[in-house]
C-alpha cells in the first residue's frame, strides 16, 4: 500500500475527487477536482502548488562530494558556483541512461541529488575510496513545487523581495517565517516549463510550509495541483519522463529498451572532454557515431485527425491529460518509431507527442504518420517533427 507524504493531511482534505496514483511508493493526487482543467489553467495563469515529496533525494556531503557527482553524472560541477542547480542524467558504463534528475550545489562540500528512481546503491557503489557521506533524504525532506506566472508574487508574500534575486536554476537557503520559523531551501526549478520554484524543508515543518504558502497564495488564485495537469504541462515543455518516454538501463530487459543521452536529446548536457565519468568512453563513441534514433517532438495534423473522426460521424474530444500508451510512428507503410506521450495542448490548441524515431527522420518538419485509433479501427494521421519546447514561455527565465 502506498504511504502518505507529510502533506497528506492537507492534500487528502482537498482531494475531493479521491483520484490518486502511486508515485515512488507514495500516495500522489492525480487531480483534486473531477474537473482537471482548472488545475492546468491555474498553472498557466495563476499559480499551483504540488506535493513533490515522492521524488528520491540524496544528500552528498564531504570533501569529495563534488568529485562523486562529477564522476557519476554526464556533467562536471567543479566550476559551478554554490547555489547552482543542474539538470543531468547519469549512465551506466555502456553509456545507457539510468535516470535523470537535478544536482544542486548547496555548498562546496554539499550536493543534493534528486532522481525519479532510487539511486542510493548506485551512488554508494561509485563512492568507494572517496571522502563522502551519502544520506537518503527521500523520506525526511519534504518538497513542494510552486509553479505558474504568479508563483513569484506568492513567494514575495512569504519571504519578501529576496525571492526576486533568485535566477533560473539557482538555489537559495531560506528561513521560512513561523511561528516557529524553520530553515529550508528554494530552488528556481520545475517540471512545467513555466515560471516556478521548488520549496524544500524537513518533514516536521511540511504542514507549516503548506499552510503558509496557501495563505500567501490566496490573492493570486493559488490552487493545489495534481499529476495529471503536470503531465500535460511537461509535454508542452518538451520534458521527457523516465519509465514513460524511455526505460532506465537499470531495469531494461533487452538492449533495445535502453537509450543513450544523445537519443534522448540530452546532447547539450554531456561533457565528454573532462575528468573520467561513468560511461564516458561509450558516450564518446556514440557521439562520434551519432545516435541511431532520436527523441523528438511531433505535432499531429489536426485537420487529418479530425477527419478520421468525422468519417465516423464523431467529434474528437481529448481530455486534459497525457496518454502514455505508446503508438507506432510510420514513414509511409514502414514503422520508424513510436510515440510515448501524447497530449492536446490547451494553450497551443495543438495535438502534441513525444516520440522516438530513427535518426534520419528526426529533422524538424519531417513528415511522418502516427497511428490513430478511432471506433476500434486503426488509421494514421500526418505528424510533423517539431522542435521542443512546444510551448516557450518568456517568464520561465525572466
Amino acid at each position: 500500500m502506498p504511504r502518505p507524504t507529510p502533506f497528506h493531511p492537507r492534500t487528502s482534505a482537498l482531494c475531493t475527487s479521491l483520484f490518486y496514483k502511486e508515485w515512488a511508493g507514495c500516495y500522489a493526487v492525480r487531480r483534486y477536482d473531477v474537473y482537471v482543467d482548472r488545475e492546468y489553467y491555474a498553472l498557466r495563469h495563476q499559480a499551483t502548488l504540488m506535493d513533490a515529496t515522492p521524488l528520491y533525494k540524496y544528500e552528498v556531503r564531504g570533501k569529495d562530494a563534488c568529485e562523486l557527482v562529477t564522476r557519476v553524472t554526464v556533467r562536471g560541477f567543479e566550476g559551478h558556483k554554490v547555489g547552482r542547480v543542474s539538470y543531468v542524467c547519469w549512465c551506466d558504463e555502456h553509456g545507457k541512461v539510468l535516470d535523470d534528475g537535478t544536482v544542486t550545489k548547496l555548498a562546496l562540500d554539499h550536493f543534493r541529488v534528486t532522481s525519479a528512481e532510487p539511486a542510493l546503491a548506485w551512488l554508494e557503489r561509485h563512492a568507494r575510496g572517496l571522502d563522502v557521506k551519502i544520506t537518503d533524504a527521500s523520506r525526511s525532506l519534504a518538497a513542494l513545487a510552486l509553479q505558474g506566472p504568479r508563483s513569484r508574487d506568492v513567494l514575495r508574500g512569504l519571504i519578501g523581495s529576496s525571492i526576486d534575486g533568485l535566477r533560473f536554476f539557482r538555489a537559495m537557503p531560506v528561513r521560512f517565517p513561523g511561528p516557529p520559523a524553520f530553515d529550508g531551501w528554494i530552488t528556481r526549478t520545475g517540471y512545467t516549463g513555466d515560471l516556478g520554484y521548488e520549496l524544500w524543508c524537513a518533514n516536521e515543518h511540511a504542514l507549516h510550509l503548506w499552510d503558509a504558502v496557501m495563505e500567501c497564495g490566496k490573492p493570486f488564485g493559488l490552487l493545489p495541483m495534481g499529476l495529471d495537469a503536470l503531465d500535460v504541462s511537461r509535454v508542452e515543455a518538451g520534458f521527457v519522463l523516465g519509465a514513460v518516454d524511455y526505460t532506465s538501463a537499470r531495469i531494461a530487459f533487452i538492449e533495445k529498451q535502453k537509450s543513450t543521452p544523445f537519443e534522448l536529446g540530452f546532447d547539450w548536457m554531456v561533457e565528454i572532454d573532462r575528468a573520467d565519468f561513468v560511461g564516458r568512453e561509450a558516450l564518446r563513441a556514440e557521439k562520434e557515431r551519432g545516435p541511431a534514433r532520436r527523441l523528438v517532438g511531433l505535432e499531429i495534423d489536426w485537420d487529418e485527425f479530425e477527419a478520421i473522426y468525422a468519417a465516423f460521424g464523431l467529434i474528437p474530444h481529448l481530455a486534459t491529460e497525457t496518454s502514455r500508451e505508446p503508438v507506432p510512428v510510420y514513414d509511409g507503410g514502414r514503422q520508424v518509431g513510436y510515440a510515448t506521450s501524447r497530449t492536446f495542448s490547451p494553450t497551443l490548441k495543438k495535438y502534441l507527442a513525444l516520440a522516438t524515431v530513427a535518426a534520419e527522420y528526426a529533422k524538424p518538419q519531417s513528415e511522418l504518420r502516427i497511428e490513430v485509433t478511432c471506433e476500434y479501427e486503426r488509421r494514421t494521421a500526418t505528424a510533423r517533427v517539431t522542435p521542443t519546447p512546444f510551448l516557450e514561455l518568456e517568464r520561465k527565465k525572466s
Partner: protein
Amino acid sequence: MASPRTSFWDAIVVGGGHNGLVCAAYLAKSGRKVLVLERRHVLGGAAVSEEIFPGFTYSVCSYVVSLLRPWIIRELELARFGLELIPLEASFLPLPDGRSLLRGSDAAQTLEEVSRFSRRDAETMPEFARAMSKIGQFVKPIIDSPAPDPASLAPRELLALLRLGRHFADASPDEMELRLKLLSMSAVDFLDEWFESDVLKGPMSVSGIIGTFLGVRSPGTAYVLLHHYMGEIDGAFRSWGFSKGGTGGVSRAIANAAQHHGAEMRTEAPVERILVADGRAAGVVLASGEEIRARAVVSGCDPRRTFLSFVGAEHLPDDFVADIRRYRYRGSSGKVNLALDRLPEFACRPGEGPHLRGDIAIAPGVDYLERAYDDAKYGTFSRRPYINVVIPSTVDPSVAPPGKHVMSCFVQYAPYEIAEGPERWPEKREAFGDAVVDTLAEYVPNLRESILHRQVLSPWDLEQEFGLAEGNIFHGELTLDQLSFLRPAAGFARYRTPLERLWLAGSGAHPGGGIMGAPGALCAKAMLQARAV
C-alpha cells in the same frame, strides 16, 4: 498628401477590430503590404481591454471568447503571439427565492443540481446535449467556409451545395425534424419539447435572444440556441472562454501576429471616407484630410457605416443600397462593468466556488425574460433585465489587484430606440446602471458597498464610442434572414461588395458576430484566391 512610407499598400483595413486584424494578419502572412487604420487610441474594436479604473482591466464590450476558430489560432500561431484562453467552468443561475442551479463541468454534480428541480429534466439533459452537438456538426462546415451561393451554376458552387444537401439527406427523420424545428420555432417552444422546469428553460432560452431585438417566445429564436452548443463542435478546443488580460488579449495577439508578418497599424487614424475612382475603391481619406491609396480596401466596420457613410449610396447600385438600409441592427443590449473590492457573495450560494468562475445568468424563468422584453418593446430599458455576469478575475488575477475583482455584466434589454430617441440615452445611462445594480443586489446583498467603480455603456454609447451601428454587438441581428448567403445582402455574402476592390471583413459578413475571427479570415482567403491583392 501621402507620406513617403504610405506610398504603396496592397490593402488598407479600415477598423482594427478583431476581424479586421485577422484579415490583415492573413494578408500580411501571404506577403502583402497591409495598413490597418483604427479610429480609437487602442486596437481591438469591441474585443478590447482597457484600464478604465486604475488597477482594473475591463473587457469593455465583448467579454467572452466564443468560437474563435481553432484553425485561425493554429494558422496565425496566436499562442506564440500571446493568446491565452481559459475555459468557462460552469453556468450558474441564482434564484430570488434562495435556490440556485449550477450546471458545470462535473456531470454527476450537474445531474444532482438539475434533479432538485426536475429529475426528468436532469436525465434528459445529456440527450439534449447530444442532439444539439449533432446539429452543431452539421453547422460547423457552414461557419468554417464561405457562404454558399445558391444562385450560381458554377461547378464548385454546385458541389458545395451538394455537400450541404447531402448533410441534410443523410440525417435521420428525427434529426431532420429537429433541424426544421430549430430553424422555425421560438427558443421557449423548442425547449418545451424537451424540458419541464422553468428554471432550466430560463437560462437556456436566453442564448436564443442575445444580440437580437426578440423575446424568448419569438419565432426563429431557437436557431440561435445552437450558438451555445457550438462550443461542442470544436471538441477538444472548448471554445467558450476568457482571454487572459481580457478580450483585448485576443486582439493584441492577432495584432502581434499581423505585425510580425509586416502589417502596419495606425491608431487614432479615423477614416472619413473610402476613395472611389473610376468606379473602384482606390484608398481612403482620413478625417485629417490625409489620403492613402491602396490596391484594395477592406472594411472591418459594419455594413451601414461601410457602405452608407464611407462609400456613399451614390457609388452603389440602388437595390443593394435598399438592402443595406433594410438590414436590421436594433441594438438591444448594454454593458455594465464593475470594479469590486471583494468577491461577490451570492445569498443563495455563499462563499467561493465554481459558480463564480463561469457565467452567471440573471434569468429566473421564462416569464421574467418575456417581461424584460415587454419593457423594451415599448421603448424603455428593462427594469429587471436579463444579465449575463462574468467575474474573469476569479481565473485571471492579472485583470485586478490582488484580492479585488472585476465584474462584467452584459445586459439585455437596453433598446437603442428608446421612446425619447436614442440621442437621449446619455440622460438615461445612470438610471440604466442603477437598474442593473439593483437587480444584481437582489442576489448579491453586499454588492453595492463593494463597488469601487462603475462603467455603464448604453447601445448609444456602443455606437458613438465603438462605431457599432445602433449598438448591435454583432454588426446586425443574427436572425435567419440575415445569415449565410443573405449576410449582409443577397449576392454579396462572399466578402466582395458591389464596389470593386472593396471587401467586407467584419461581423456583418458571413458567418457573423462573436469573437470568432471567421469573417476576417475567410475574407482574406477570398481576396487572395481572387488575386485581389
